[in-house]
């Protein structure tokens, strides 16, 4: 179907012979128990351009769909409105009906009569019927101005660049390669594995992290479709979905590296000594190279929260450490094989304090000069702290362990068992209120550290617990990737992690087309959840790139060249590089032009265009105006 030029500004509605069919669904009784369907159908029949108005018990059923299909053929309908449930359920179903009947699928409009009328207006059936009529009227008004659209088809390079070589990036790279896509895996550190490599035995499997990662790195580095670049930094990013172009600076070799078993073991072993390890030198000098990829997956992970000086006594005594530091000590045997000791000091008692740098509250945690509070829960720390406590108990049965928390959130499969095990084997739990975190003081006595709090589990008794070691159970903060955020225009949520389009409907996609996210760059996740997200991102990328081209919904900005004055207001307003730019036309004038591959369809440009030349297809201002006019019509 070709585009009719006369319709360009919606003026075409009357010029073209618009024939609208309106179909109202009873939804069993879900809609019809409240809304008087007969009245809605009668009113719809009187609306402009409506040639058929009918109802059915279930419009989404085969008979319902066939009714529309038949009418499109016999009544020569060229627009269809269905008043039924929310468009999130059956918009695609009904677009399919239009396609099957031989008309453009984008000539369909929905009126949401169930979730937004009948289900919320049981007490006012008259009002509900009136509201349903007005919403159908608005849908008809929009439908009259709809135009045929075609999905945007973009050439796609069958390569995915995965940024971040932690568990998430590794899992994703391997899944992608197994789905027959080429992969470039970029890691800014000289080694792979991310934060998991710093851990020892990990829950829930009780396997050493090194074993899990070692296996994965071996497979990834041996796969012929995967090219690994370590010590790599993205210095420039351009292009769009289908053909991203990244300029990367990397140390050492640029070709596929197949890591030897010795190298993997040495790298992973060195990681137990700290986040930076004793790293392997990949060779002298740096090289720059360009990578073209159809899509990008961000797997840039997290950083440990670092308490500020004095926060729960941090850095004021060597016996106040963070959970990751304790895990490192445990892993490298730092607490000794006999009775536990740290730096020569015997450790007979340990107090864990939860939620350090997580679930912070305004007015409570901003006291010591902090400007950015982490309101979110870091999710893995409760289980991880109890897991560490369990390992300590196993190794040092005489050690007394206290656990100070505001809640215990052992949410995952099997996590609650870890909680129960530690409780049964003698860990003493105390609970503080959200607004009254414990205080840590350094004393002259032995043990030298004192944790003071009001314990809610003993009816707010004020208690002072002397301990040898305080472990601050720190959470996660997003890893700093400001340059990537700027270059790729990546949206971040209020908590500064990367933001998906929708947590349930599009959980691994970003609003920037072709950029996917997985793992801890999106939110605090444990390794099981990170791996699941990685596989989801790989499947999503493969589904999109597998055909050799990418198809996108056509709801992007379009410029009516006849109306464009070339003011460049849209170009200045747009936040997406190159989504809209000024080009010289044949007549020598400069006009705006949209790159449909980059445009995300937000419409920011439309608001600032002085002549209304630039509009988002499917969501044009004239369509909205027509809808509002129609809402105000009394039938």
């Amino acid at each position, binding site marked *: 179907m070709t585009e009719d030029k006369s319709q360009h500004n919606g003026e075409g509605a009357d010029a073209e012979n618009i024939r609208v069919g309106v179909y109202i669904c009873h939804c069993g009784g879900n809609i019809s128990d409240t809304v008087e369907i007969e009245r809605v159908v009668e009113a719809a029949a009187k609306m402009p351009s409506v040639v058929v108005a009918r109802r059915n018990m279930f419009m989404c059923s085969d008979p319902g769909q066939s009714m529309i299909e038949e009418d499109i053929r016999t009544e020569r309908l060229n627009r269809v409105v269905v008043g039924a449930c929310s468009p999130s359920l059956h918009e695609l179903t009904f677009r399919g009906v239009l396609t099957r009947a031989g008309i453009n699928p984008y000539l369909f409009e929905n009126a949401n009569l169930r979730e937004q009328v009948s289900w919320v207006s049981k007490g006012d059936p008259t009002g509900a019927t009136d*509201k349903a009529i007005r919403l159908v009227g608005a849908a008809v008004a929009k439908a009259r101005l709809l135009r045929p659209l075609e999905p945007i088809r973009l050439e796609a390079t069958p390569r995915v660049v995965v940024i971040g070589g932690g568990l998430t990036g590794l899992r994703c790279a391997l899944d992608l390669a197994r789905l027959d896509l080429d992969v470039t895996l970029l890691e800014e550190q000289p080694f792979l594995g991310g934060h998991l490599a710093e851990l020892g035995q990990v829950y829930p499997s009780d396997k050493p992290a090194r074993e899990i990662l070692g296996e994965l790195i071996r497979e990834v580095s041996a796969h012929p479709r995967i090219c690994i670049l370590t010590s790599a930094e993205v210095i420039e990013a351009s292009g769009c979905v289908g053909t991203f172009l990244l300029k990367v600076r990397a140390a050492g070799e640029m070709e596929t590296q197949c890591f030897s078993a010795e190298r993997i073991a040495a790298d992973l072993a060195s990681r137990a000594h700290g986040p930076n390890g004793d790293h392997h030198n990949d060779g002298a000098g740096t090289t720059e190279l360009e990578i073209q990829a159809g899509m990008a997956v961000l797997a840039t992970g997290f950083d440990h929260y670092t308490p500020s000086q004095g926060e729960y006594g941090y850095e004021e005594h060597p016996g106040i450490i963070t959970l990751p530091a304790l895990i490192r000590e445990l892993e490298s045997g730092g607490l000794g094989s006999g009775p536990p000791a740290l730096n020569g000091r015997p450790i007979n008692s340990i107090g864990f304090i939860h939620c350090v740098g997580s679930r912070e509250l305004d007015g409570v945690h901003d006291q010591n000069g902090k400007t950015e509070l982490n309101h979110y829960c870091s999710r893995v720390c409760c289980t991880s702290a109890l897991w560490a406590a369990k390992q300590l108990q196993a190794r040092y049965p005489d050690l007394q362990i206290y656990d100070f928390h505001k809640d215990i959130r052992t949410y995952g499969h099997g996590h609650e068992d870890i909680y129960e095990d530690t409780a049964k084997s003698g860990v003493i739990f105390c609970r503080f209120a959200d607004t009254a975190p414990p205080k840590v003081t350094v004393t002259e006595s032995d043990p030298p550290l004192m944790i003071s709090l009001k314990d809610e589990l003993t009816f707010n008794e004020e208690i002072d617990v002397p301990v040898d070691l305080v472990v601050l159970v720190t959470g996660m903060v997003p890893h700093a990737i400001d340059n990537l955020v700027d270059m790729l225009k990546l949206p971040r949520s209020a908590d500064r992690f990367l933001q998906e389009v*929708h947590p349930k409907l599009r959980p691994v996609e970003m*609003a920037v087309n072709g950029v996917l996210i997985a793992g801890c760059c999106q939110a605090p996740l444990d390794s099981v959840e990170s791996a699941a997200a990685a596989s989801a991102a790989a499947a999503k990328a493969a589904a999109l790139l597998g055909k050799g081209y990418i198809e996108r919904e056509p709801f992007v900005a379009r410029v009516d060249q006849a109306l464009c004055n070339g003011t460049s207001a849209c170009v200045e307003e747009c936040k997406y590089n190159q989504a809209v730019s000024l080009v010289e036309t044949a007549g020598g004038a400069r006009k705006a032009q949209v790159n449909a591959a980059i445009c*995300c369809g937000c*419409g*920011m440009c439309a608001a*600032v265009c002085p002549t209304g030349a630039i509009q988002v297809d499917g969501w044009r201002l004239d369509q909205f105006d027509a809808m*509002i*006019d129609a*809402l105000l019509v009394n039938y």
Partner: protein
Amino acid sequence: MTAGNSGRKPMILILATEACAYPGADNTGQIHAEYSTNAYVVRVPAPVQFNEEFYLRCFDKGIDGILVMTCGHECPYAGAYDRTAQRIGRVHELMKERGLDTRRLRICAICTVCSKAYLKEVKAMVELVSQEQAAAVGGS
């Protein structure tokens, strides 16, 4: 068939973002919570596409109250939420110049499961425009 909005129930327009507020409105239906039948939801990708005149035009046509229900800082489009908020501020200025009560246009953030917040916003706007209508009838 007649147009205009004289002598009828006040009408509230809700511009609801496709990614957050619209599913939020659907969620309110899924839990079968009731609210006034005067509130009409229109789905939008991002309200940032509406210029100042659009809002003024809506009031001219007879819309009594507008709720711009956004994704707030969870907005998937770069810079769109801040821009919308700024623009609503400017529309408020223009409304003042025209003697319109600025409370009739409100921006808020509604998530996909924020039924409580959704209901609270709708209820507050229904009350406001109903009071204003009553006052106008009483005063004329």
